[in-house]
C-alpha cells in the first residue's frame, strides 16, 4: 500500500482532475452560469414525481400498509393508556422457544415517554438510549407515512436511533395527527419545524428482515424482530 499520510491533504488535486474530466466528458467549459441557474431553479421548485392515488382515511391506510409489512398497529384514545397497552402487547407475544427470552418486562424509552406510569403497568422502563442487550425499546415518532405504513424517526439528543434499532421489540407511539400522505409531506414537516437537517432521518417500515438465504424471508436480521405501533388520537 503506497500513500499513507497525505492522501486527504492532497485531495484538492484529485478533485480538480475529476471535475476537469467531467467537464471534458460533457464538452462544457468552466463557465457554467446557465447550468447553475437551471440547477438553482430545480432546487427551488422541488417538483414531485408520480405518486399513488390516495383513497380513504390516512390513519386506516397507514394501519393497513403497516400490517402488510409485518408491523402490528393498535389505537388508543389517550397517551396515559400506553403503558398498560405495552404490557398487554408483551403478554400476547407468541414466541418460538428459541426466542423465549424476548418476553420481557424491562426496557428503555425516549425521555419524552419517561413520565408515563410504567411501574403501574408492571413494567421497568428506563428513559435512556438503548444498549446492545436491551430487549425492548419504546420510541415516539416524528411522523408517519400513510402511503407505505412507514414510521419516520428523526435523531436528536432526546430521540436516539439506537432505541428503535437495537432492541428485539420496537414499540412506537405515534400521534394520529402526525400521519401524512407520503415522504414528500414528511420532508415538508421537517422543513417547517427544523432549522437544520438532523444527522439521521430513519424511515422504518416493519421489522428488520433478510431474504439473503434462498430468498426466504426471516424477521429480526439485525434489528427488531417485531415493530408495534401505538396510534394515539
Amino acid at each position, binding site marked *: 500500500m503506497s500513500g499513507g499520510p497525505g492522501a486527504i491533504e492532497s485531495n484538492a488535486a484529485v478533485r480538480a482532475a475529476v471535475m476537469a474530466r467531467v467537464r471534458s466528458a460533457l464538452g462544457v467549459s468552466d463557465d*457554467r452560469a446557465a447550468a447553475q441557474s437551471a440547477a438553482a431553479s430545480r432546487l427551488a421548485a422541488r417538483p414531485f414525481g408520480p405518486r399513488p392515488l390516495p383513497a380513504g382515511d390516512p390513519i386506516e391506510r397507514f394501519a393497513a400498509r403497516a400490517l402488510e409489512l409485518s408491523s402490528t398497529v393498535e389505537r388508543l384514545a389517550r397517551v396515559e393508556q400506553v403503558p398498560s397497552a405495552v404490557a398487554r402487547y408483551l403478554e400476547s407475544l407468541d414466541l418460538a422457544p428459541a426466542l423465549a427470552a424476548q418476553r420481557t418486562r424491562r426496557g428503555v424509552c425516549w425521555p419524552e415517554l419517561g413520565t408515563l406510569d410504567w411501574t403501574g403497568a408492571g413494567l421497568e422502563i428506563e428513559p435512556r438510549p438503548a444498549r446492545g442487550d436491551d430487549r425492548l425499546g419504546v420510541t415516539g415518532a416524528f411522523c408517519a407515512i400513510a402511503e407505505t405504513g412507514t414510521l419516520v424517526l428523526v435523531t436528536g439528543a432526546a430521540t436516539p436511533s439506537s432505541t428503535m434499532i437495537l432492541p428485539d421489540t420496537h414499540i412506537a407511539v405515534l400521534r394520529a395527527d402526525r400521519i401524512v400522505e407520503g415522504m414528500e409531506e414528511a*420532508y415538508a414537516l421537517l422543513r417547517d419545524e427544523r432549522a437544520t437537517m438532523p444527522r439521521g*432521518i430513519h424511515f422504518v417500515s416493519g421489522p428488520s428482515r433478510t431474504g439473503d438465504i434462498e430468498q426466504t424471508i426471516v424477521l429480526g436480521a439485525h*434489528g427488531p424482530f417485531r415493530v408495534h405501533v401505538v396510534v394515539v388520537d
Partner: protein
Amino acid sequence: MRVASIEFKARAGEKLADATLQRNLVRVKGKFAAKRAAAMAGFHDFEGLREAGREIRQRTLDDLDVWLGIFERSATAGGATVLWARTPDDINRLVLEIAFRHGVRKIVKSKSMVSEESSLDRAIEAAGLEVIETDLGEYILQINGYEPPSHLVGPALHKSKEEVADLFHRRHKTARKEGIEDLCLEARAVLREHYLTADMGISGGNFFVAETGSVVLVTNEGNATLATGLPRVHVAISGIEKIVPTLEDAATLLRLLPRSATGQPISNYVDVLTGVRGEGEGGVEHMYYILVDAGRTDVLASEVREALRCIRCGACMNHCPVYQSIGGHPYGWVYPGPIGSILTPMYAGLENAHPLPAASTLCNQCGVVCPVKIPLPDLQRKLRERTFERRLAPWSERAALRLWSWVAARPALYGASMRVVARLLRIWGGRERRIRRLPPGGGWTAGRDLPAPDGRTFREQYAARRRAGGKPR
C-alpha cells in the same frame, strides 16, 4: 477485484454443468420477477414513474459537474468532509488514512459495490485492521474467502442453505444449524457484537442528495442503520453518478427502486444521513464522503453514457435468460447480468471483458424492466461494434462477419448463395428434416437441433406467390 470476464464462455459452460448451482438457480428463478410484476401492477402509473426516474437521473448526469459542486457545498456545510477518488486505489488510500487519523481498529461495513471494485476489504486487512461485512449475503461471501457476489441485491443467492450451514459450522465453530431461521439468528449474534465494538462504519450510497448534502441508504436488514449509527466515524463511498437534486427526487426514485428490485413498495429501512451527530446525541463524530470516478467519466464521455443512470436494482439480471441460466459468476467482476455487460467493459477495459456484451440474445427483457429506461441491448450492440473495430474478437469470427457483410451488401450474390445454402441444408437435414450437427456452428448444435429449411429461400417463395397472383402474406 480481479477481472475474469474474458473467461466468460468457459465459466458459463462450467456453471451449466454444475448440478448444485443449477438447483440453487431454479429455486430462486422467477421469484424476483413475479414480485416485481405484482408491485408494478399495484402502482397506477408505473410507466410515468419510470419516465420520471429516467428524467431525474439524466438531468444530474447532463450537468454533473454543477450538481457535484452543489452536493459538495451542502455536505460540507452539514459537517461532513468530501473527498474524491480518481482511481480504485485512491478509495483504499483514503479509507486507510481516515482510519489511521481516528485511531480505528475495527470497521463494520454495509454493502458497497463500489468498494468491491477496489477490493477495499482486503486492503483494510492488509493494513492490519479488522473489517466485517454486515449485509448477511456479503458476510457469507466474506467468510467464504471473499467469494465474489453473484447478484446486485442478493449477493449469495447462488448458495443453498446447506452450503451456508456448512460454512457457518466451519467458520463460527458452532454446532451445525439446519434451518434458515437458525442460521440467521447465529449470524445476528456474531454481527451484533461487531456493531457494538466497531470504531468506524463504511457504507455505500444509494443516492447523494445535492440539496441537503445527505446520503440515502436503503436496506431491509437494517444493517446500514446500525453500521452508520453506532460507530464514531462514518465513511460513505459511492460513484459520482449517484447524485440526485432534491429529497423529493430521492422520494420518487425510492418508489422505483424497491419495486424493481424485490417488489416491495418500500424497503424496511431508508436512512437519510447528513453530517455528524448533534449536541448531546450519540453516534457519529466524523463523517466523510468519498466520491468515486474510477471509470465513470470515461462512460460519461462515451456512447454508452446512459448506463450511468443505473440505480442498482438488479431487475435486468432477474429478467435475463442468460443470467438466469448461468448465475452471476461467469460475468467475472463486480456487476453481473446485462448492466454488468456494459459497466465491466467500460470500467475494466473492453479488451478484458468483450465476451460480456456478446453474451446476450438482445431480447430486451432487461430494457423493458429497467426503472430508469437504460436501453441495455442498444448499448450492448454499441460495445459489440467497438469489439469488432478494435479486433478483439477471434480472427475466425471477424473473418466470418466480414465475409457476411461483403455478401449481404450484394443482393444478387446474396440471393444466389442463399439459394445454394438453403438446398444444401435441406439435403443435410435428411428425412427427419433436423440438423443435428453443423460443422461451422458446432457450439450451437451441441445443445439443440436446427430445423432444416424446406429448400427454397424466403425471396424465392415471395416471388413465386407474386407470380401466382396471390397476395403476399
